[in-house]
């Protein structure tokens, strides 16, 4: 198996891109990444996307975006794993290069959500859950996370306000990211008074609906330095799965796939959780941040929230998270999110994170979660010195 590196990244701002179609957004991120990597040809393009058929009325994104980007003829397919689609595309690209079948692979995440109205988007997102036994009963995706949050508060004795710092930290980091959807800080008061979406989850627990596209170019590490001054080595890449529905889980409050995916990644990289310098986690809702921190081995069960309370997660804390705003403030264009995380980890490791730059960032981890924890992709990246 060959060692794999990222030789370029590209992204467009996360926003309501009413003036851009899904193919244009894909092209913009792809061309930016190819320029960044100084490559003009690719062996393959993997497009992570969740809801293009439902919300953009367009499938067949692989060929569509390849052709629109002037790459007609290239191998190109769409990869879908709900909100983990972007991370899953990264994994497929990693395998293609590691196996020796491909040398230059673009891995992209793209999502166009804002062409549709609220209830249709809500119904689309519920497709990440069990159609016959969750969504049929009127559960929104938010409400499934709300069931987790309520139970978590009950079992471990937290109040809703205890989760606030996850959102406050994310917004504080969004301020310095030019690609973030929300670039304004929020206060505890605003968090406490935000409108309920699905009780106990309110608007400021939740990541926003958005459009976006982000991309990375992968190549064998052996030739990476010919294309990039600062290649980023992929130390680990893994996917694990769990039951799609919450009711089928052995322990609903334990994200088994996140734990499995993280432990596989640690084994692959030969590192421990304590070696990770910063963590781009999947803060679709504040409760997911807590559960991810626990499953990935950064906090004991029921202690994930404490990391938000004691300041561990800030940019100068013990384990900075969501350093560019996370899903909460950068925005959550679902199928694109996993690739925004990868691009952000790469920028931190290249010391190109601007005002959000973390000191001594050497080993960065991204974890992209599909559904309420059914597909989890973990990627560990390292700057080649």
């Amino acid at each position, binding site marked *: 198996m060959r060692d794999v590196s990222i030789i370029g990244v590209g992204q467009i701002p996360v926003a309501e891109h009413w003036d851009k179609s899904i193919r244009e957004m894909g092209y913009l991120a792809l061309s930016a990444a190819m320029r960044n990597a100084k490559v003009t040809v690719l062996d393959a393009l993997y497009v992570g996307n969740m809801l293009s058929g439902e919300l953009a009325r367009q499938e067949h994104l692989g060929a569509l975006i390849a052709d629109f980007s002037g790459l007609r003829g290239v191998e190109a397919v769409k990869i879908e794993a709900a909100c983990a689609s972007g991370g899953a595309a990264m994994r497929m690209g990693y395998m293609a290069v590691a196996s020796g079948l491909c040398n230059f692979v673009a891995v992209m995440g793209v999502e166009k959500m804002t062409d549709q109205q609220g209830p249709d988007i809500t119904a689309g997102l519920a497709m990440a859950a069990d159609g*016959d036994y969750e969504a049929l009963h009127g*559960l929104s995706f938010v409400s499934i996370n709300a069931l987790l949050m*309520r139970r978590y508060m009950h079992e471990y004795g937290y109040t809703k306000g205890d989760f606030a710092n996850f959102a406050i930290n994310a917004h504080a980091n969004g301020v310095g990211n030019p690609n973030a959807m929300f670039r304004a800080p929020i206060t505890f008061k605003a968090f406490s008074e935000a*409108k309920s979406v699905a009780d*106990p989850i309110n608007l400021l627990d939740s990541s926003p609906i958005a459009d976006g596209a982000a991309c990375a170019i992968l190549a064998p590490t052996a030739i990476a330095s010919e294309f990039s001054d600062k290649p980023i080595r992929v130390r680990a890449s893994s996917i694990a799965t769990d039951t799609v*529905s919450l*009711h089928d889980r052995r322990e609903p409050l334990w994200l088994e796939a996140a734990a499995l995916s993280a432990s596989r990644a640690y084994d692959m990289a030969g590192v421990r959780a304590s070696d990770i310098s910063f963590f781009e986690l999947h803060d679709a809702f504040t409760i997911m941040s807590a559960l991810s921190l626990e499953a990935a081995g950064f906090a004991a069960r029921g202690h994930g929230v404490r990391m938000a309370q004691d300041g561990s997660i800030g940019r100068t804390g013990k384990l900075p998270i969501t350093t560019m705003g996370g899903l909460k403030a950068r925005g959550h264009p679902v199928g694109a999110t996993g690739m925004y995380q990868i691009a952000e980890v790469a920028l931190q490791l290249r010391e190109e994170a601007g005002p959000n730059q973390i000191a001594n960032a050497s080993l960065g981890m991204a974890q992209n979660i599909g559904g309420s924890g059914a597909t989890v992709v973990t990627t560990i990246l390292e700057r080649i010195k």
Partner: protein
Amino acid sequence: MEVSRFWRTTKQRYQLIGEVCGHCGTKIFPPRDVCPSCDLEAKTPFEFGGKGEVFSYSTIHQAPAGFEKYVPYTVALVKLEEGPLITAQLTDVDECDVKIGMPVEMVTRALREDGERGMLIYSYKFRPVMESKSI
């Protein structure tokens, strides 16, 4: 909802028919053919009693398409007496009165109308257990 999909899940929605594993005895709902406990085939039908308690709950204020006119409504994870968790709506109860651990029982109720000319979709929901009155 597609007619065939409606028809093939009727037993589950109307009667809480799941399965029992012939190998390890685990009661399974929804039916899934492979036992989640022992990974062996489980295809023996089993009718659940419909009694359980609230494991967690949430009141929905922003509903998916098809459910907009029913907001706010409360959904729950219910721990059935026989073991499994089930996802369902709660009914006949004010959201303020719902508590984790509250005993509930299954009833059959309309979930939603599937458009103006579509089907009225019925399913299980759960309500607080009515206290039996002694005469």
